[in-house]
């Protein structure tokens, strides 16, 4: 009973989505079930919040070294959540202030760390160690040059090669041809895999909701 019903629910909801896709008459089902999904996901936040409180509360109550940071985390969570729920999320609310001056700079800065990491990754990984790595290196190298005005300037100093447009080589041949072909092969292969896993879920062979058995 504890096993059959979830399988049943899973199969019915999957079939409902598939049928809704092909049948204009049942199209509404698709929208509605997806809205249900969103609603359930919001309820799941309660579980998320419980997890946060348990993990951090535990460290605070045990006074693990650095427990002060966990206090900061919990204050951040509750103040933001409380303001958002009771004070609204429109511009000029305190919630929006937190969004503008705490959330935004933090996420933009975290994101911008990539500028540094992409350089260190390139330094380490782009070495002509094997023939595969050499291809990776050459493609990256040419595209990097082609993406900036200065690269084009440098290209025009090269003998012979300067007669071919670097921009055309990069945009048309490397990005348009090789990159498209590679991406397409990955997409096509992955889609077949995706359909196969979805079918296995539908057939009850994969049951992640049951604990992976």
């Amino acid at each position, binding site marked *: 009973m504890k096993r059959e019903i979830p399988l049943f629910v899973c199969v019915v909801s999957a079939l409902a989505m598939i049928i809704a896709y*092909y049948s204009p008459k049942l199209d509404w089902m698709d929208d509605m079930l997806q809205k249900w999904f969103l609603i359930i996901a919001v309820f799941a936040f309660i579980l998320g919040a419980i997890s946060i409180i348990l993990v951090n509360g535990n460290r605070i109550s045990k006074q693990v070294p650095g427990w002060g940071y966990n206090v900061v985390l919990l204050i951040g969570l509750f103040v933001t959540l409380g303001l958002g729920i009771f004070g*609204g999320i429109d511009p000029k609310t305190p919630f929006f202030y937190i969004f503008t001056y705490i959330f935004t700079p933090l996420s933009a800065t975290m994101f911008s760390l990539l500028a540094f990491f992409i350089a260190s990754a390139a330094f380490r990984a782009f070495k002509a160690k094997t023939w595969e790595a050499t291809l990776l290196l050459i493609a990256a190298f040419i595209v990097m040059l082609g993406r900036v005005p200065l690269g084009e300037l440098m290209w025009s100093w090269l003998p012979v090669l300067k007669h071919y447009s670097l921009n055309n080589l990069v945009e048309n041949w490397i990005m348009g041809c090789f990159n498209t072909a590679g991406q397409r092969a990955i997409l096509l292969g992955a889609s077949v895999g995706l359909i196969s896993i979805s079918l296995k879920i539908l057939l009850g062979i994969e049951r992640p909701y049951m604990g992976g058995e």
Partner: protein
Amino acid sequence: MGIGYIIGIWLAGFLTIAIFTFLYKDNPVYKFAEHLYVGVSAGYIMAIDYNNILKPNLFGNIAIAYDSTVNKGVFDLAAWSYLFAGVLGVMLILRVIPKVSWVSRWPLAFMVGLGAGLNIPVTMDATILAQLNSTLCSVWLPNDPGTMVFNILLLIGVCTGLIYFYFSIEHKGIFIGGASRVGIAVLMISFGAAFGYTVMARISLLVGRFLFFRDEWWPTLDIIMKSIGIS
């Protein structure tokens, strides 16, 4: 340009630098910013989803249903049906009570099933058929050798790339082995190209942070200096 604005800009500036210090090494300032960020962002997303999803889709619909049932005497089933989603949501939370935690598998099964069901036909359309469609082209265009070479290379790239993903055949021999080697070569070129293409985007993010200091933080200095009488 009130005091709130200036405090906000300075707070943003402090947090920006706090995150940057992570590049040197982990330190208390970063730890503070990190924990604040995790807490605030969790609260932020929860509040946004509460306001944008739960309020209109669940409470909104139930209010409509209640209103039409009580005031107009019409039983609005479509709106009432959203109550089910609420019930499933509550079932999910029940997992914190060990005795009945098994009921949380129902909404989980619902969500997993939904994803599986949605993905089958959508992937077929948006990926397999669409990509297949755009791969189709003539490979004999004597009047336009450039396009012809392009089409042939693209075709070879897609086919060999796909052969690389074969699992049930050993990648040996001239045909399969050779094709899968060409396939991995195409994949590597595409990875390299995508990496190189992305470098720029990443740099521009950093430009954005520096522009913040130039265009927003720096001018607040003027305001502060003026307000305390130095100019």
